[in-house]
């Protein structure tokens, strides 16, 4: 085929058009795709897959693709959950994982709020590998999403990801200083460069978060931090969620800057307690003792049991952590505890935080097991300012528990607000009905979130999953986004069909 022959001229044997490779790249980790494949729907296949190793090779590929109107989908680890890399209209998957070098660390450069250091790296590097390279030199990126073992730096930037320590280190867009990219027509934008068609906008402000719809990010320069000398974790329980939220807000607004803040709602706290308090208790954990059939029956009518569970006097667990000099973080932890005690909290010691730290990545890898057992699982992450947060939580919980079991925790806290992370576990007994209920659940959540003033995505991105609601989320900025898209990608080849563009 002409496309294959041309790409082989550029990349040699780093191109594949065989059925196996095409099938491997037909999806990311979006739950909807899993359900559709299980229900027997045919997968969407790319035309071919290629593995460039340099920015120049990406430029050659895009020049050809834009001339021949072939879609191009940048692909990192494929760990996204919003369908951001689905090849909706075929095309070329641009797997960037061969561009995985860490090119250098610089610093300290002095700024108003202290010294900072930077790393320059290619965007195909896996998150954990980047972190490992930095740790070897005594640094950390401070970015620990649960996908760190299977997501790339490019994927982080494309989606505006957040790590579990974002309350201290920020989201990825707070870390990136500059980037190198290739636009749809093959133009390379180097560090410090500008885009000719939009010379007054920094490329980093345009391309971070654009999910590959405006260009391919090939390299980035990011702020890094010396590895902290000490860490501390603490757990605290509250009788009521509103008091726990107030304490969390007060901790953030006291200027304390914890690295981790995670507040679990009553049901999630109840399940967690069995996980860390006692191994014996863990083996008596309801999901282990209640027979599979009973749970599946319960999930056919999830609303009533959860309303009843909501009446139980269950504590909420707050975990917080600090990083820095040992004596200082001890003082910061004490200050946070004092704030919690004013809201009538019980000190649960270091164990809950240490347990979370030990298992923080493994929870995501339990999801395939649930799918195998006939459940469906998904996560919905929204955010709001503190004044709107509790109504947002209550409103979304009410609608989601009509469809599935709902667990929720508050994390990625800021002085002005917080994110809420819902995990939904459902079962309908029918694969087609699973697909239908999953779509209804998302529709209900997005509509309710917009109505209550929250954002429809805090860090997972839009992809195809939330594209329908992006115009209402962005309001007057959506036409502006479309105009930018038309200017930079008039042929519409960059990741088509995503983000409502």
């Amino acid at each position: 085929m002409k496309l294959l022959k041309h790409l082989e001229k550029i990349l040699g044997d780093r191109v594949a058009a065989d059925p196996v490779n095409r099938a491997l790249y037909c999806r990311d980790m979006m739950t909807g795709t899993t359900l559709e494949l299980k229900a027997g729907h045919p997968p969407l296949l790319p035309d071919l897959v290629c593995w460039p190793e340099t920015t120049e090779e990406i430029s050659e590929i895009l020049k050809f693709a834009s001339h021949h109107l072939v879609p191009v989908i940048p692909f990192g680890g494929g760990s996204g959950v919003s369908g951001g890399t689905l090849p909706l209209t075929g095309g070329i998957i641009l797997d960037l994982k061969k561009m995985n070098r860490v090119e250098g660390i610089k610093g300290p450069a002095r700024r108003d709020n202290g010294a900072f250091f930077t790393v320059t790296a290619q965007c195909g590097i896996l998150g954990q590998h980047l972190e490992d390279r930095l740790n070897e030199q005594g640094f950390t990126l401070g970015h620990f999403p649960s996908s760190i073992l299977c997501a790339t730096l490019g994927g982080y930037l494309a989606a505006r990801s957040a790590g579990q320590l974002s309350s201290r280190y920020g989201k990825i867009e707070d870390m990136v200083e500059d980037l190198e990219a290739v636009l749809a027509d093959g133009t390379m934008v180097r560090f410090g460069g500008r885009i000719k068609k939009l010379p007054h906008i920094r490329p980093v402000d345009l391309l971070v978060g654009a999910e590959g719809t405006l260009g391919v990010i090939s390299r980035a320069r990011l702020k890094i931090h010396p590895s902290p000398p000490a860490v501390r974790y603490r757990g605290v329980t509250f009788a009521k969620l509103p008091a726990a939220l107030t304490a969390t807000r007060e901790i953030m607004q006291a200027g304390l800057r914890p690295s981790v803040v995670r507040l679990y709602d009553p049901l999630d706290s109840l399940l967690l307690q069995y996980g860390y308090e006692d191994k014996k208790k863990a083996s008596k954990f309801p999901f282990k003792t209640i027979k599979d059939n009973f749970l599946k029956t319960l999930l056919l009518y999830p609303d009533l049991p959860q309303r009843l569970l909501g009446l139980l006097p269950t504590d909420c667990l707050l975990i917080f952590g600090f990083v820095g000099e040992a004596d200082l973080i001890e003082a910061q932890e004490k200050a946070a505890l004092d704030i919690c005690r004013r809201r009538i909290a019980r000190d649960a010691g270091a164990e809950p935080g240490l347990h979370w730290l030990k298992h923080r990545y493994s929870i995501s890898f339990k999801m395939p097991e649930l799918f195998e057992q006939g459940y469906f699982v998904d996560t919905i992450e929204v955010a709001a300012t503190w004044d709107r947060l509790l109504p947002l939580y209550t409103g979304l919980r009410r609608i989601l528990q009509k469809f599935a079991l709902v667990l929720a925790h508050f994390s990625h806290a800021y002085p002005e607000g917080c994110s809420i992370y819902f995990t939904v576990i459902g079962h309908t007994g029918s694969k087609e009905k699973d697909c239908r209920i999953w779509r209804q659940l998302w529709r209900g959540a997005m509509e309710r979130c917009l109505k209550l003033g929250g954002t429809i995505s805090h860090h997972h991105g839009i992809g195809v999953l939330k594209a329908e609601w992006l115009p209402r989320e962005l309001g007057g900025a959506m036409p502006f986004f479309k105009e930018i898209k038309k200017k930079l990608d008039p042929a519409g080849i960059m990741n088509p069909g995503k983000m409502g563009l």
Partner: protein
Amino acid sequence: MRKRIEIDAVSQLVTADANLRLDQLEAWLRKRGYSLGRLPFRNWQRQRHRQLRQQATLRKALETGSAGGTDGAGEICLSLEIESPHGRIQTKRVPGSATGPDFKKIFIGSHGRYGKILSATLRIVRLPERRLTVKARWVQPVKSRKFLKRLAASGIRCSSLQFQDRVALSFQIEGMKGLVAAEVKTAKRMIRQSGGKWIDG
């Protein structure tokens, strides 16, 4: 015509008309126990011409500021209302999002090219209970650089860091009384351990 200022004490935000002068906004906030903080609009604070400094409006500071970095107006700006050729744009009033590019960063520093900023929602902080200046000196630049690296990982929240001759520095620490005391104590220890000398006063 009265210029709009609305405070959200729960979320610690202020929404203000872009025509307001910065010094007016700061004075209004201080009467209520709040502040814009380190005033990332420092380009205007440093303005030698007193008249220009006093006349700096929120719009001017945002349109000429940068979206990133510690000097950036973008650092404390949560959302913007803009009159653009596409109509009125109100960027979302949320603490963080992953809904495409951060459009407010495009408008900040744009010198009004893509639209006129009508109002902004800004993060505010409570007036600090205490503010202290830390000053230290080293004999060799390599030791002061080592201190800087350790400072970056320490958890100390410093601002207004200034360097002289690569061997002397000063920075400010402000916030709750107890925390400031703990941070200053830690800073003194780190300075001593890095071979530096704490300078009083």
